[in-house]
């Protein structure tokens, strides 16, 4: 997938680490494992962070030396305590049968998502435009910068459109 048509900056390969995103709206498009690393750092400086994640994973605040079912209980409890909204918790819960069985460790991922300057967007992405990211609920999410992971979770057939939004063409 190419992000070449996006007018703003795109950052991958850990280039987001240590960067100052002051005044920028940033999209995070990465695997669940990478997202839990990226988001807590970005919210420290960015104006607004939009987290595109439709395939969540279980998150633990620290490594838990326990068997699978107990780890899942701990992860559920961490989610319950860390995220106040019922619907957001549902969006952050892996699919009961097809979700990832792996556990990730992040102490402050949920705290970052709870901030008013951070939003979880769980709709499937279908295109990158010059100004942002389009998702299947029909909305273009405008951003100044896209931070992406090593494995950008977009299907090989995801379109990259260069067509600007109608709003702008008629402006």
């Amino acid at each position, binding site marked *: 997938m190419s992000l070449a048509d996006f007018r703003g900056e795109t950052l991958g390969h850990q280039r987001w680490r240590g960067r100052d995103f002051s005044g920028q*709206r940033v999209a995070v498009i990465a695997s669940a494992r990478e997202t839990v690393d990226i988001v807590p750092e970005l919210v420290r400086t960015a104006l607004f962070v939009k987290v595109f994640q*439709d395939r969540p994973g279980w998150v633990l605040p620290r490594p838990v030396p326990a068997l699978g079912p107990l780890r899942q209980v701990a992860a559920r409890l961490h989610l319950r305590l860390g995220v106040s*909204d*019922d*619907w*957001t918790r*549902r969006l952050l819960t892996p*699919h*009961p049968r*097809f979700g990832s069985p792996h556990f990730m460790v992040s102490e402050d991922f949920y705290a970052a998502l709870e901030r008013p300057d951070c939003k979880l967007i769980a*709709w*499937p992405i*279908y*295109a990158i435009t010059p100004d*942002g990211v*389009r*998702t*299947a*609920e*029909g*909305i*273009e*999410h*405008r951003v100044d910068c896209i931070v992406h992971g090593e494995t950008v979770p977009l*299907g090989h*057939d*995801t*379109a990259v459109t260069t*067509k600007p*939004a*109608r*709003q702008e063409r*008629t402006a």
Partner: protein
Amino acid sequence: MSSHFDEMLRTIKDKQWSLADIDWDSPGAETVTDELRAKMTPFMADLVWIEHVGARGFASLAKKAPTPVIEEIYRYFHAEEQKHANAELALMKRWGMLDENDDMPEPNINVKLAIKVLDRYGDSLPLTGLATLIPLLECALDGALVKFLLDEVQDPVCHEVFRHINSDEARHITVDFQVLELIGAGPKHRLLIETIGNLKPQVVLGLIVVFVPLINKMRDNIVALGLPEKKLYNAVKRFATIGGRGEHTRRIPAYHVLKAQAAMIVDRSHPYHRLLADPMVKLTSLIPARLLSKPQSWVDEITHRPVAE
């Protein structure tokens, strides 16, 4: 069968569209006169809420999907129903049907009850129940409500929006019935277990207290606006015809129950209305909305804005 679903998922991804593709300020809004606006505002509000609640239904179906590909298709359908609600809300804004804050119209008590039930039980409903109910509602939406709207409104933007929506809905109906075929082809014992699951008190009660009055109220409101009852009849007939074409759908008890109920809904002279539906509409209208706890935040996801800054 699985290759059908793979191909359908590819088509769904290829056919995505956005509210930003539509020129919401182009001429045509003036064709909606004051008289038409007054008549159509409650209809559009109901339509937006049907799509919005339908979206939530697909979110529950995704949890129950039999395969990962169907799960992904349902996640797209969840988003697409939300897109339809967003686009219809944008039409309401274009036609001056929203208040000064551009807020979503308040749902009636029956919609609020449906939201409550979906929040509480949606994810635990058996697959066959929801998977049968949704195509019935989509046949009614596609075959009756949308056709009525397009007959009444001449605004070219409305027709452009509904070309997209109808194209999406055609795919939804195709997949809905393919999934019913898949379920119907399953072993008898699984169908039996699913059927027993559908007889859980919360499902039966939900059907009587929520679904029956919700649909009847909308049915009567829309017929009062001028929707010919023949169109409703044809929509239900379509549900029976497409389901009847399948080799295995007829093995699903929920399909027969909903088909029979739909036939009663469209026939206003049937005792179903006098003995069950009308009393339930009256009874539910007495429920104070404040008794229902705050809905989950998906209700606030709707927007008429094509671009989120």
